[in-house]
């Protein structure tokens, strides 16, 4: 759902750009505290994996394809702030290096996928995880639901931006975007659960949000991971 140049009004580009810049700025500030010997290589791995996986468009209904977003994957592995930075970096490299997503829409794309699709979706994940019983199965169920929500919310945000820009009415854009991304979101959930499941099996200590080994902490403390 990388928005190209030409779809957004100047107002929408600037507004989303300012919010995205603020979120990335705060993420950079948090990164200073959160990065350690374990998370430096993991951040690089997450960025490489998300970039590669986003190239793999899978077919969905009606001559349409979808690809992985990765917001919940990186947020579950690294926490929401480092995760946001990974997605924002992937979007920046795709935009500048591969002409994927317009540079005037970079702020909107970062807002949709790194802020909404990663940070907000992580808090949805965290809410579901807190409600559900402890355990690997419920953890992965929370990952699945949040992954689907991540894609739906990001595509919904894109539809709203298109509508505010006067590109297409919301009554047209929103159902169309949510309809196709409801299917793409299932792919997102499957891939995310597979990858998180593999990491949990191999190195559960590298899944930062998997904090069942300790008494369930409050969210702020959970980030210490």
């Amino acid at each position, binding site marked *: 759902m990388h928005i190209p140049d030409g779809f957004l009004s100047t107002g929408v580009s600037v507004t989303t750009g300012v919010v995205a810049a603020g979120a990335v700025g705060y993420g950079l500030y948090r990164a200073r505290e959160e990065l350690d010997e374990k998370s*430096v290589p993991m951040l*690089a791995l997450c*960025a490489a*994996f998300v970039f*590669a996986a986003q*190239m793999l468009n899978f077919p969905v209904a009606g001559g349409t394809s979808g690809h992985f977003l990765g917001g919940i994957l990186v947020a579950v592995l690294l926490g929401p702030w480092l995760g946001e930075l990974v997605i924002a970096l992937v979007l920046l*490299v795709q935009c500048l290096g591969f002409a994927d997503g317009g540079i005037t829409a970079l702020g909107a794309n970062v807002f949709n996928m790194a802020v909404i699709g990663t940070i907000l979706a992580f808090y949805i994940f965290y809410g579901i995880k807190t409600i559900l019983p402890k355990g690997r199965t419920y953890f992965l169920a929370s990952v699945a639901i949040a992954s689907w929500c991540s894609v739906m919310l990001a595509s919904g945000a894109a539809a709203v931006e298109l509508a505010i820009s006067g590109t297409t009415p919301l009554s047209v854009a929103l159902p169309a975007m949510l309809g196709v991304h409801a299917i793409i979101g299932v792919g997102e959930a499957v891939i995310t659960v597979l990858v998180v499941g593999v990491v949990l099996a191999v190195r559960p200590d590298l899944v930062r949000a998997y904090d069942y080994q300790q008494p369930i902490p409050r969210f702020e403390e959970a980030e210490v991971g």
Partner: protein
Amino acid sequence: MEARKKSILIFTFAGLAVAIALALIVSPWASSSPDGLEKVAEDKGFIEKAEETDPAWGSSPVPDYAMPGLEESHPALATALAGLAGTVAIFLIAWGLALVLKKKEGEAKVEAPGGPATE
């Protein structure tokens, strides 16, 4: 080298190998159908707004994930090499960025609520 640190590096490079394999081997078989947003733009008749707009940044080294010079003669190879180059490049950029951002050894650790991620 500390065993624990070494084991994280092994995991990281094994994961990087998987990512490179995906980008190099699987990407040429990826669906070339329009993605969700493009399809909606085509169906709802506003794709022209993007097609009529000149990209504001025209200097991408590898436009559309196809290595320049190969996209006509060897499209699958062009995509595979673009995937390889992008995956390795972003891995190095992200690692470098993380090292720059990371608090340096010896700097005072500020203990704040939800503060430093320590092992």
